[in-house]
């Protein structure tokens, strides 16, 4: 009898997955559902509530998508599905969940910068699931004696268990354009150079941040991108046009800066 009671208690009090204690960030939060508002529409449809990213024990970023089937003719359901971090939760909204919790009603969601809380009734009993972000970390301002490790990440990073399926390890190969910056110095796409297999290099174009490619090359050598020299050292405004003034870059002796578009190479 005791065993049955314990089992029943466990079942009713089922908690959020333990890995939710070490989430990295909340992503793709449903834009229309307000904090602490009952979610009642659109009835009988699956909705993406939010995604949670984790750094797993294989050092891959994984993502849990949390879906909610809004109750209508049928009772509500919560579905959790792990997807690769580069896949939008909405793309897999109809796929089966890794875990599903049924008989859900009166669901409310509250998100803050460091946590997300789901409050709901399951079979008429109140439950509360909470996901907490690992230590709230902001990149420090660079200053003397700061290390690159401290600049890039917290000193200790909690890792979530590795999901067995549906994560991909995709380091970017050498020469892939990992940060696209236009000749107007505007970023065309966010940098993904952190995914490069063996570092990255910049092709200087006179901008504060030029286009970058994966791979560790020797700048200034023949056929290679020129080395970045900066523009401040000249102590005067120079036209930012490689063909007019390429002093923002340098090449090894015997070679000259050759402009291919706005990008400086050594020929």
């Amino acid at each position, binding site marked *: 009898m005791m065993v049955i009671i314990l089992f029943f208690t466990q079942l009713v009090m089922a908690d959020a997955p333990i890995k939710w204690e070490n989430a990295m960030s909340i992503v793709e939060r449903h834009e229309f559902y307000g904090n602490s508002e009952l979610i009642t529409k659109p009835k009988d449809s699956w909705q993406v509530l939010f995604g949670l990213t984790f*750094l797993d024990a294989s050092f891959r970023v994984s993502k849990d998508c949390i879906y909610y089937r809004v109750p209508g003719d049928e009772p509500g359901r919560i579905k959790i599905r792990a997807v690769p971090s580069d896949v939008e939760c909405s793309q897999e909204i109809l796929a089966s969940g890794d875990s599903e919790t049924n008989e859900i009603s009166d669901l409310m969601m509250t998100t803050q910068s460091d946590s997300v809380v789901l409050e709901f009734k399951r079979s008429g009993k109140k439950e509360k699931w909470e996901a907490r972000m690992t230590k709230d970390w902001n990149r420090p301002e660079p200053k003397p004696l700061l290390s690159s*490790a401290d600049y890039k990440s917290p000193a200790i990073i909690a890792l979530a268990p590795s999901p067995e399926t549906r994560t991909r390890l995709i380091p970017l190969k050498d020469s892939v354009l990992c940060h696209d910056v236009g000749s107007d110095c505007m970023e065309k796409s966010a940098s993904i150079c952190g995914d*490069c297999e063996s570092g990255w290099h910049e092709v200087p174009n006179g901008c504060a941040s030029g286009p970058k490619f994966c791979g560790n090359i020797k700048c200034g050598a023949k056929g290679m991108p020129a080395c970045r020299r900066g523009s401040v050292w000249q102590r005067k405004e120079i036209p930012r046009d490689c063909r007019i003034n390429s002093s923002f870059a340098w090449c090894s002796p015997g070679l000259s800066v050759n402009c291919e578009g706005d990008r400086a190479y050594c020929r």
Partner: protein
Amino acid sequence: MNRASRSNSIIPKIIIFLGTLSVVGIILLFFRRSVEQAPVRVKPDTDDKLFTEIIRASEPALLKLWADGHSMVKGPVRCKEELILEKKIGRAYLDCQPHLWQCFWQGGVTGDSPSLKVDLFGQSYHVVANSSFPAIPSYSEYPRFYEMMKLTGSHLNLHYGYKIQLSVRELPGLRQDLLLTDSCRDTYLPERVYGYGKRPASGEGFLWDNFGRRIFVDRFYVTNQMVNEWKILTQGSINPDRSVWPLPAILSLTEQKEYCSFLGKRLLTAEIFDAASMTPTDFKNPKPLKVVRAQTPWQRDLGKSFLGVARINPDYQLTPLDCQLAQVEGCNEKYFTSDSASWMGMNYPLGFFPESLENTIEPKLNLKASSRFLSPSSPLHELGVRTHWSGEVQSPGVAFRCYEEVEP
């Protein structure tokens, strides 16, 4: 009678005064306590959550053990397979040192049953690392308390780290994997206008700047211990002589570049080396009108330093302070000493070992030749002075270090 009545009238006043003082004191104490007790933390209702709270609370102690490892070692360590600490090895070697981490949890530092004590929710808990990673036979047969990880595609721009696993003695069965990063390795090169090479006879010479760039330079030479980890991860064979693990790794130029590249870094360049070595004249102005080339890291003019004096006086007797600044011929052999740190925290700008540098401005001048193998009177003991190295492994060996540029 008068005296008695006067004393009678004072006593109530004193009582009232003391009473008021007590009441005010109690009120102040009450407010002070309420401010101190504001962040009341409730003990989690499940073991899983309690476990997470304990692991989070243990982070300061973990960081101290990892990044400030030297402070944990009060006496001799008892792990000959991991660490041989000779007098010539400075304590900075023990910071972010995986072999010390292994030694500590094997009981070689504090004795049997090491743990990190965490007081939380009115109770003491003991956080321990698990030896849940495979043994590395070339180190020892003992299972490891960490695993070296080459990180690729982690989206975090991290290239390397050490995976560990923690438990809490009072909550058996629960485990947490964590990643330790090497926050002791390098140091930031501030954004400034810098000069390359020795003091020019005329003009300003080669100037450059690193505004908008995040450059981090290794504080010390790459060691045999670091290269061993690279070899293990790339199926190579390690240097088994534990006594040389803290010493500079002697590799060919090609291997040096491969090592740095493996970590997403590059071999240090000549212009960055000069920037890291030559103390700016005006720290507050990163865009000075004139960029002065210092001849030594600690004296702008070489003539005022012991190296300048030694050039004039062949009988110059080196002092212990001289050898801390630049280990030259005649100094005792020492490693991981931080007394030679330059203005931005890079060690060994002059003396110590010959050092390999990538040089795209004067490609043939790729060696900082100033070293402990040259007499203090050598003209090579000067910042900006370089010679050529063929890139082959030779005696006495050429040390190297890496730098990393991180996206802003």
